[in-house]
C-alpha cells in the first residue's frame, strides 16, 4: 500500500502550503488594518481642518475633539450612571437582540416552509415581496400604536426588520441545495425531515449566516426607530435628548457608539459563521 504513503506526503505538502496561505492572509489583514487606520486619520484631519477653515459653528458640525469629549463624558462614568452610554446602550441592545432572535427564528421557519412546500411558497411569496418592498420603517408608527411606548414595540420593530433577510436567505439557500446530495438521501430512503436536517439546512448555512449578518444590523436599526417615536430609554432616546438641546457633539458621539456596536455585532456573526461553516468555499468534489 505504497500509495497511502504518497498521499500522506501530499497531505504534508497541503498542510505546509496552507500554512503559507495563512501567513499571506495575516499579512494582508495587517495591511488592510493599516489602510483603514490611515483612511480614518485622513477623514478626521479633513474634518478638523474644514471646521476650522470654514468656521463652522459647533451646533452645525462640532470639531472632532468635541465629539471625543462628549463620547468620553459618557464612558468615564459608573456603569449605572444615568449620564453614561451604558444604560441606554444596554436597553437598546437587549431589545434589538430579543427582536433579532424572534425575527431570525420566524424567518428561518417560514423560509424553510416555503422551500419545502410549493403551495406554501405560492401562497406566501406575493405577500413576502409586497412587505419587502414596503419601507418597513414607515410601519413603525402602527407598531407603536399596537404595542405601546414600552419595550414591546422596540422588540417588534427589530423582529420585523430581521425577519425578511432571514426568510429570503434561508429560502434561497435551501432551494440551492445540490441535487446530487438530495438524490443521495433519496437513495438512502431518508425521510423528508432527515433530508432537511442533514442536507438542506447545512447547505443553506452560508446563506443563513448572510441573512443573520444583515438581520442583526437591521434589528438594531428597528429598535432605534421605535425609540425615536417616543420611548423612555435607549440610544434613540439619548439621540433625541441631545438633539433637543442642540448638543450636536452628543448626537455624533451616540452615532459613534451605535456604529461601533453594529460593527462588533457583525464581527461576532462572522466569527460564529467561520467556526460553524468552516467547510464552505473550500474546494468541493
Amino acid at each position, binding site marked *: *500500500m505504497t*500509495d*497511502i504513503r504518497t*498521499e*500522506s506526503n*501530499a*497531505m504534508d505538502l*497541503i498542510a505546509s502550503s496552507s500554512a503559507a496561505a495563512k501567513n499571506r492572509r495575516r499579512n494582508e489583514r495587517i495591511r488592510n488594518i493599516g489602510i483603514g487606520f490611515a483612511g480614518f486619520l485622513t477623514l478626521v484631519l479633513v474634518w478638523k481642518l474644514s471646521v476650522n477653515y470654514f468656521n463652522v459653528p459647533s451646533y452645525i458640525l462640532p470639531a472632532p475633539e468635541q465629539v471625543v469629549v462628549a463620547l468620553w463624558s459618557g464612558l468615564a462614568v459608573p456603569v449605572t450612571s444615568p449620564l453614561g452610554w451604558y444604560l441606554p446602550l444596554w436597553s437598546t441592545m437587549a431589545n434589538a437582540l430579543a427582536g433579532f432572535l424572534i425575527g431570525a427564528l420566524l424567518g428561518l421557519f417560514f423560509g424553510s416552509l416555503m422551500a419545502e412546500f410549493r403551495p406554501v411558497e405560492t401562497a406566501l411569496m406575493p405577500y413576502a415581496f409586497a412587505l419587502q418592498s414596503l419601507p418597513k420603517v414607515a410601519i413603525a408608527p402602527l407598531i407603536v400604536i399596537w404595542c405601546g411606548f414600552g419595550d414591546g414595540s422596540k422588540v417588534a420593530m427589530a423582529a420585523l426588520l430581521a425577519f425578511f433577510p432571514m426568510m429570503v436567505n434561508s429560502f434561497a439557500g435551501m432551494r440551492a441545495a445540490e441535487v*446530487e*446530495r438530495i*438524490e*443521495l*438521501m*433519496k*437513495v*438512502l*430512503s*431518508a*425521510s423528508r425531515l*432527515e433530508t432537511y436536517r*442533514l*442536507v438542506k439546512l*447545512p447547505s443553506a*448555512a452560508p446563506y443563513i449566516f448572510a441573512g443573520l449578518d444583515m438581520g442583526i444590523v437591521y434589528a438594531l436599526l428597528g429598535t432605534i426607530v421605535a425609540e425615536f417615536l417616543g420611548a423612555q430609554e435607549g440610544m434613540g432616546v439619548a439621540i433625541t435628548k441631545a438633539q433637543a438641546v442642540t448638543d450636536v457633539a452628543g448626537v455624533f458621539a451616540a452615532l459613534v457608539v451605535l456604529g461601533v456596536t453594529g460593527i462588533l455585532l457583525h464581527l461576532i456573526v462572522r466569527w460564529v459563521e467561520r467556526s460553524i*461553516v*468552516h*467547510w*464552505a468555499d*473550500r*474546494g*468541493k*468534489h
Partner: protein
Amino acid sequence: MTIAIEAPAGAMIAGEQAQSRRSPLIAVKDVVKVYPTVAGDAVLALDHVNLDIESGEFVCLVGPSGCGKTTLLRLLAGLDTSDAGTSSLAGKALNGPSPEVGVVFQQANLLPWFTVMQNVLLPLSVGGARKSEQLITQIQALLRVAGLEGFENKYPYELSGGMQQRASIVRALARDPKLLLMDEPFGALDALTRERMNAELQRIWMASGKTVVLITHSIEEAIFLGDRIVVMSPRPGRIVRELKVDLPRPRVSTEMLGNPVHTALAREIRMLLE
C-alpha cells in the same frame, strides 16, 4: 500470465452461460424509458432493454454519451421508474430505493459539513436503518482496505479527489448491500489515479463478493474491471452486445498491455461503438 487464452472473446459466452442458469440477482425485462423534453416532445432513452446480472458478477456498461447508461442505472437505484417492462432485484420488483443497493455517484458527493467517519456512517443513521456493531466493525475494516485509516476525523476538503471517491465507495457499502451501482466513479480523476483506483476497486470487490454494475467511458477500465461488458447503442438506448472478459484475477494493469484477449476485446468494443 500463465493461462494462454487464444480463443476469440465471443466463443466464451456460450459455455459460461450454461453453468449459471439459476435465477439472476437482477432481471431487467423489456424496460422502456421515455423522457419528456422542454420542447414538448419525448425522447426514447431506453428501448426494450433486457439484462440479467448474476450474484457476485462485475458488469461494466459502456456506450456513447447519452445512450441511456445513466438512465438504466437510475432505474436500478430506484431514482427513476420505467415506462414499460419490469426490473427486479433478488426476485422482488424494483420500484424505489432499496437498502440492498449502494450507489456511487460521478462526484464523490460527500457532505462537506461531516467528517469522513460521519459521511460513511450516514447510511446507518437515516432511512430507518439500524446501526449494528457488526456493520460498524465492517465499515472500519473497509476504511482500512480503502487506505483511509487515520483520516476518519478529517473533513472531505482535507482529502484528495481519489481519497474522497474511495470514502464514497465505503459509504455505498455501509449497509452491506447486495448490489453496488457506480456511475463513472473515476471520470473526474487523472489517468494515473484512476488506474490505481481501478486496482483498489478490484481488491475491494474481490474481498466483499458484491455484485457491481459500473458505467464507464473507458474501454480500458471496462476490460480491467468487468466479468462482462455490456455495450449500448446511441439513443434510443439498446444493448447491442454482451462480451465476457476471460482474464484471470487479480488483474494487473501492466500485464494487460499486449495481452491478446485484451487486444481483441478492445478492438471489438471500439468497432461496436463506432
